[in-house]
């Protein structure tokens, strides 16, 4: 399947053994570079050129600009300078990164990843590095260093697992965002992210799905739900004056299993009588500005949500299932696009859709038939951004309990994976942080190993058949990489997909009734066709008769 070795998984205890390090296994040129036309809309440096082999240059005065940007970042982000200063090189984080575990490349150890930047920071901005570079491991900024940055800072999904285990909470994600921001400004942006963000600016979502196509898709969903249930569940778009603005990752509009989740939200809203709408202007929950460390672009994308909320005159904002989207929403939205004093103060801004579904399930407001999910034994993948970057409900840890509570309320069979791989110790899917692109396939496959190991363990020992997730990236990444590890795509499910299949809507037809309805419709259709045929024949006969008379 691939020209690299797929890591082996044993399923013994669900824990990936710490490998011996093997330098340079993942040395390379990194993901595709963002061309000037994608750099410009982001206000990033674009004076770069491509040679005959397709290699891009940096901007002419790249070194100066890089150091200036570094200086700028250290005055704007405390995390940047503090974390570069205080790491004691204790090594506690070295075996915590899924990319190190999966690739054995030492530069994927969190502290070594930070060191790529730290050694330059030290050289130019610290006393020790200026006068005793060898002693403290400081080095000059060269093009090789830039290449290493571009390569290895794109082998970090900014999942922050390392930060949990560092005695000072040193967050490699902060460093890798800063590094990417520096790279943005010397003409080495990442194409996958900038290209997608440009679509958000132009069209409103990552997929570039324009309003008419979106309206069509939603209509299709309404038909699907009607066919399945006989109930008229609406997926409204741009409905001014609705109570709730639903923001969801655009993958929910068409990708599998995302779209089944979207159907789930729609059914829950319908059943609870909640008046909601989607927005075509802010038809994207994802915010890739975070991945590339660009506060300005992240803010600009967030502002679209504010504008949509104002234009549609809603009272609440609710987010669908997406990991980093929920981080930007929960932790950053108030900062970036607040204050939200024009919304209903009785609800947190924003809310997660699970914060609506869970209380409803708990209070018995939804009619659930758990047995409809009896063909599955579930486990739950805590998405890294949700687990370590957000909360749900009003108590610490809600981000772990609420999704599990929901799953357990709609499914009879549930098993957790190994403790070291769940809750705030969860492993990233391997595709977060702007890594979910085909040009980084090897990184993605290898980075998924720790999760695959844990999944295999519960599969072998507890008969788990499906893994539920609440993140668009996790779902896309897993459906793509789990076949490499001997699983099948359809083993990944959305949490609201489970809700959807167990939820019995008011007035929902039973299977027999649907069969009867479909049979009746079919009979009607056939009858109508016959009638039309007959009418046509009669008409033809009459015409012929008329013709015969003329002759």
């Amino acid at each position, binding site marked *: 399947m691939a020209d690299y070795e797929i890591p082996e998984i044993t399923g013994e205890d669900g824990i990936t053994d710490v490998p011996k*390090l093997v330098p340079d296994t993942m040395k390379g040129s990194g993901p595709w570079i963002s061309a000037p036309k994608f750099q410009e809309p982001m206000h990033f440096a674009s004076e770069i050129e491509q040679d005959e082999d397709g290699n891009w240059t940096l901007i002419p005065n790249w070194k100066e600009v890089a150091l200036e940007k570094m200086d700028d970042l*250290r005055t*704007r*982000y*405390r*995390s940047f*300078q*503090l*974390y570069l*200063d*205080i790491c*004691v*090189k*204790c*090594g*506690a*984080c*070295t075996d*915590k990164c899924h990319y190190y575990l999966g690739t054995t490349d*030492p530069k994927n*150890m969190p502290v070594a990843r930070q060191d790529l930047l730290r050694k330059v920071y030290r050289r130019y901005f*610290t006393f*020790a590095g200026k006068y005793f570079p*060898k*002693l*403290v*491991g400081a080095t000059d900024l060269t093009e090789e260093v830039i290449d290493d940055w571009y390569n290895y800072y794109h082998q970090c999904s900014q999942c*922050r697992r390392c*930060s*949990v*285990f560092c*005695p*000072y*909470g*040193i*967050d490699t994600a*902060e460093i890798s965002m800063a590094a990417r921001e520096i790279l943005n400004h010397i003409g080495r942006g990442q194409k996958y992210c900038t290209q997608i963000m440009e679509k958000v600016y132009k069209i409103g979502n990552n997929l570039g799905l324009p309003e008419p196509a979106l309206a069509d898709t939603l209509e299709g969903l309404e038909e699907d739900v009607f066919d399945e249930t006989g109930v008229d569940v609406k997926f409204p778009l741009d409905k001014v004056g609705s109570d709730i603005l639903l923001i969801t990752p655009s993958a929910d509009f068409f990708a599998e299993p995302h779209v089944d989740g979207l159907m789930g939200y729609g059914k829950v809203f319908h059943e609870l009588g909640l008046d909601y709408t989607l927005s075509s202007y802010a038809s994207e929950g994802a915010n890739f500005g975070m991945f590339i460390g660009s*506060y*300005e672009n992240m*803010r600009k994308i967030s502002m679209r949500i504010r504008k949509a909320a104002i234009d549609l005159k809603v009272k609440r904002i609710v987010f669908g299932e997406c990991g980093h989207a929920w981080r930007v929403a*929960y*932790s*950053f939205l*108030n*900062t970036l696009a*607040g*204050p939200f004093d024009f919304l209903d103060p009785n609800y*947190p*801004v*924003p809310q997660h859709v699970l914060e609506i579904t869970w209380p409803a399930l708990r209070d018995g407001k939804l009619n659930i038939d758990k047995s409809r999910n009896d063909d599955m034994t579930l486990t739950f993948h805590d998405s890294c951004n949700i*687990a*370590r*970057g957000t*909360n749900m409900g*009003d108590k*610490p*840890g809600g*981000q772990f309990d609420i999704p599990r509570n929901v799953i357990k309320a709609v499914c009879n069979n549930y098993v957790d994976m190994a403790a070291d791989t769940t809750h*705030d*110790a969860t492993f990233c899917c391997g595709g977060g942080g702007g890594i979910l692109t085909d040009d980084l396939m090897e990184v993605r496959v290898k980075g998924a190993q720790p999760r695959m190991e844990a999944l295999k363990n519960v599969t072998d020992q507890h008969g788990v058949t499906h893994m539920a997730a609440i993140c668009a990236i996790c779902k896309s990444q897993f459906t793509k990489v789990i076949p490499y590890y001997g699983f099948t795509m359809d083993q990944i499910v959305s949490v609201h997909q489970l809700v959807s299949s167990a939820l019995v809507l008011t007035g929902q037809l039973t299977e027999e009734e649907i069969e009867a309805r479909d049979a009746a419709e079919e009979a009607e259709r056939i009858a109508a066709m016959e009638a039309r045929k007959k009418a046509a024949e009669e008409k033809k006969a009459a015409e012929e008769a008329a013709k015969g008379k003329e002759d």
Partner: protein
Amino acid sequence: MNALGIIFGLLFWVATIVIIVGIIYKVRIYWKTPAPLKIPTMPAPRTTGGVVFRMFREVAFFQSLFRSDKLLWVFAIMFHYALALVLLRHTRYFTDTINSVVLFLQPFGMYGSFIMVAGLAALLARRFIIDRVRYISAPSDFLMLVLLLAIGLSGIMMKFVSHTDITLVKSFFMSLRTFNFDGWYLPGDPILLLHLSAVALLMLIFPISKLMHAPGIFFSPTRNQVDNSREKRHIAPWAAELDEQGVDYLHELKK
């Protein structure tokens, strides 16, 4: 007064100024640089009191380290607690009145130095033995431990092997507080001089090295932020400027 006394007297004056001014300078930077976004590693406390308690657990018990590496945690606790003990005991060289806490700790303190040195030796050993830790270590990371070992071992030598004149050391440090040069006198005891030189060096490099982790930990945004982003708007001054001027990009800001 003797030449050694003057040299070491000046050295300690300089070292004291460097460590104090240096730490204040660095801490001021950490204090003033904003953390523009809410980035606590979740689950995080929902109240300030909760954050204080979280920080206390980190500083007093190295909670996160305990989760990540039990063996390292043992060595780290050995070293740091013994260091604290040793330093407390050392206050008797600098004050006349001996504090009751120090008095109470005296008997344990006797062994503190051994635990400290054992901890340091273990920390140094793992830098050589564990391939991942060896890979991330710069020469300075080894030398820092060697320096601390030199301080600890020379101290132990003085205490248990070749005693030095403690009353002299005490009166030397007491007189450093004033510029009454009469008391600036130190005996030419090589072990003492090694001990003191190494301590002075440690003080000099403190603010420019990773030793800043001690004050730095209190400023770490992933550990010191409250989980209240939805209730309270958190915004850095430079970011608020974007709102005020209604622009998207920093370079569009009017100064």
